[in-house]
Each structure stands twice: as structure tokens, then as C-alpha cells.
């Protein structure tokens, strides 16, 4: 069947099997491999992306269920070569080691800060409780989100060179 959705602002259409999971749609059909595919059981949260502005676990959504809807992936955080404060926070505070949980963490953190620009530690820990991290003990992730909260709206000193493909081929 054909599915059409808006991904990071670009409308895309693909022919898919109805059983295709959204995580595989964005990774394998759109080449957006920033969204990771982890536990397959809705536990680890690395596959979290936004569906109509809400963080959801994309391993537990069928691609056809996103037909006609709006998706934002971790690739959609960066705008015009400027990393999102959340992305910079993870760099500044060493919020990742292996990086596997990072896309889900960042998408959840961005949503949190959009709704609560100055969250305390408990609020951050609750917000990221749908993601598992096996490297950081969460401490640095919490610091990274706090960093982002404190540096919200600031321009990045040196814009990131656009090394990676961020766009989606429509």
C-alpha cells in the first residue's frame, strides 16, 4: 500500500507492506538512520520520534498508521546548520558514550523543554524514563538537558558544517 506523510517538513510517499513498522520505514525506506532500532518490545525508547508533535516509540507504530501524519526525527532537530540546544547539551555535558539511546533521549528532551523550559532534575528523570541508557548512569543526560534549558535560544558559536544528509528525498 502507499503511505504519504510529512517527515521533518518534507512530504514523502512510499509503497510499503502494511506490516512495516514506522522505525523501519524511516530507517530503511527514507535512509534516516538517526532513529535507532533497539529492543523491539517498546522498552528501550531509542526509536522515539515525534508523531504529530508527540514522542512515540516508532517500533510500536505501523507505518500505515502514520499515513497522513507528521513525523519529526532526530535529524529534524538541526536547523540551518545550527544544532539544537539539546544536541549541544549532549556534546557539552558528555551526555552519551556509545550513542545508542541518544536519538530517543534527544527527542524526548526537546519535547520536555518545549513544554517545560526550566525542568528540575526529577522532572527530567521522569521525562526520560521511557529510554534506557547503559553507559551514562543517566547523570550526564540529566546535565545535558539542564544545559539545554539554560542555553535555550542561544546561537551556536560555530555552526556545525553540514556533513551529513539531513533531508529526505521526497
Amino acid at each position, binding site marked *: 500500500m502507499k503511505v504519504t506523510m510529512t517527515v521533518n517538513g518534507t512530504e514523502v510517499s512510499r509503497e510499503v507492506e502494511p506490516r512495516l513498522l514506522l522505525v523501519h520505514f524511516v530507517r530503511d525506506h527514507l535512509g534516516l538512520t538517526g532513529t535507532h532500532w533497539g529492543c523491539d518490545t*517498546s522498552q528501550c525508547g531509542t526509536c522515539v520520534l515525534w508523531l504529530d508533535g508527540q*514522542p*512515540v516509540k516508532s517500533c*510500536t507504530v505501523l507505518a500505515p498508521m502514520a499515513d497522513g501524519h507528521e513525523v519529526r526525527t532526530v535529524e529534524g532537530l538541526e536547523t540551518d546548520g545550527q544544532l539544537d540546544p539539546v544536541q549541544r547539551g549532549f556534546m557539552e555535558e558528555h551526555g552519551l558514550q556509545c550513542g545508542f539511546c541518544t536519538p530517543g533521549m534527544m527527542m524526548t528532551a526537546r519535547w520536555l523543554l518545549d513544554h517545560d523550559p526550566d525542568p528540575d532534575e526529577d522532572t527530567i528523570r521522569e521525562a526520560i*524514563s521511557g529510554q534506557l541508557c547503559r553507559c551514562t548512569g543517566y547523570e550526564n543526560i540529566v546535565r545535558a538537558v539542564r544545559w539545554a534549558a539554560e542555553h535555550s535560544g542561544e546561537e551556536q558559536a560555530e555552526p556545525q558544517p553540514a556533513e551529513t544528509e539531513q533531508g529526505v528525498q521526497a
Partner: protein
Amino acid sequence: MQTPAPVDYARATSVDHALALLEQLGPESRLIAGGHSLLPMMRIRLAQPECVIDINDLTDLDYIRVEGSDLCLGAMTRHATVLASPVVGEHYPILHDAERRIADPPVRNRGTVGGSFCQADPAEDLAAVGSALKATLVLRSAGGTRTVSARAFHEGPYTTVLGDAEMLTEVRIPIRPGAASAYEKVKRRAGDWAAAAAGAYLLLRDGVVADVGIGLTAVGAPHFCAEDAETYLVGKPPTEEHIAEAGRLAAAACTPRADQRGPVEYKLHLVDELTRRVLRRSVERAGGRAEQ
């Protein structure tokens, strides 16, 4: 990699359309709302429907409102919406207690009230809450609407009284002015299913229990509730002694299974302890301390 077996997909645009699709596609079709129980089961092929009927467009079933003397939750209301609802918190804090402990925030953004009831997982928190609150479920089919008590809705693990071409549209909870309520869950880690959980509401009048409901999760309680404990408490003051006996009676009615979340003895201990805790907390929330 876990992938569902090949399946067809249909999208319903209204309740009537969903019912017509169920009728047309037959008993091997399944409604899918949040999908956070059905899709994991499809991935490990425990469920292999021929067709899933997506009901996420039925936003007219996404509501929380007071109608007459009932608090009404539409079947498509997301867990996150229930958790954020002031009107829910005003009447039944038990729902906020429970929702806060259901899965995790991204799952709660997607999972629905109706899905929780219809999945009929023995560890489903809302089934026990609905049972504790003696909720009424509104079921619709092409033939019309019928209602069934939450305590009579589940026939066993993963089975309900729903007909093949019938769907749950609403959960109605009688508002009991002055009633207090609470839910407590023990789980191994954030986001886990309950090892055991208990929920209760309590209505006190002149210092004695006028009305009470006790729900139990994941412990093999018949109809997710503790009827003996309820019957025992009515007409008695909520003293520590009576609360302890209610906990004992609740545990006596349960037949939990040993699994990775603990042995039978441990779960029975949890039923006893958690029943007492939610009764005590309800008494506290009702404005009085349990009399010693």
C-alpha cells in the same frame, strides 16, 4: 528482528465505519488504537490478525467529561490525557496514581483507555481501577448499544465479553461525592508491568465505611477485585485492625502465578500490604486519619 506476520490494514473514519469493517472483515480482524499491546504481540506472533482496523481517527471518542453523575472517558482517550486531566484528579485520584505508573511517557502518549480494557492483560492497571470503581463499560455494535459492568467485562486473560463486531466506546465511572481513592503498584523498574498492584475508593459516613471498592492487578483476583474485603469493611470504622483484616481477605481471594516478577508468597504478601496502603491513603485523603 521481530516483524508482524503479513497483515492487511484498514482505517476507520467513524465508529459506524469501524463496526462495519469488523462485520465485513470477520473475527480475524482486530481494532488497533495505541497498538502498544497488540503490536508487540503481533511481532512475536502471539497475535496474527488478518487485518488491523486503525481507529486512531475516531477523535470523537477522545474525551473526558462529566455527564450527569458519571465521569465519562472516551475509549480513545490517551493515558497521557487522563494523567493531565484536572477533572479526573478532582473526582478520582486513583486514576492519576495508576496512570503515573503505567509504562512510560512515550507509551502513555499513544496507549488508550479503551485499549487497556480490551487487551484484557491480567497485569493491566486500568482493569483493576475500573473494577475498584465499579465502572460501567459502553459497548457498541451494529445492533445497538449495551452496557456491562467492568467486573463482568473480562472473562479471563486476554478475553472479554466483547462480540466479534462490537467495540468499547466509553468507560463510565459513577461520581461518589466525598469518596477518596488511591492506587499503589510494585514493579521492578520504571515502565514495568506490576508484580502486584491495588486500588481502592472509600466513602465514609459518620465514621464508618459506607461504600468501598477494591481492585487488584496481576494477582489472579476474580474480576480484578476483592469482594470479600469490601463486604467485610462496609459498616465498620476504618481502623488499623479492620484495614489489616481487609488486606488479609484480599490476599486470600487471589491466585497469583510465580514468574520473573516474584514467587506466589511474595505476591500474596504484596496484595495484603498494598490493599492496606491504599485503604489507609484513601482514609487520609478523605480527610481523617485511620483510627488506631
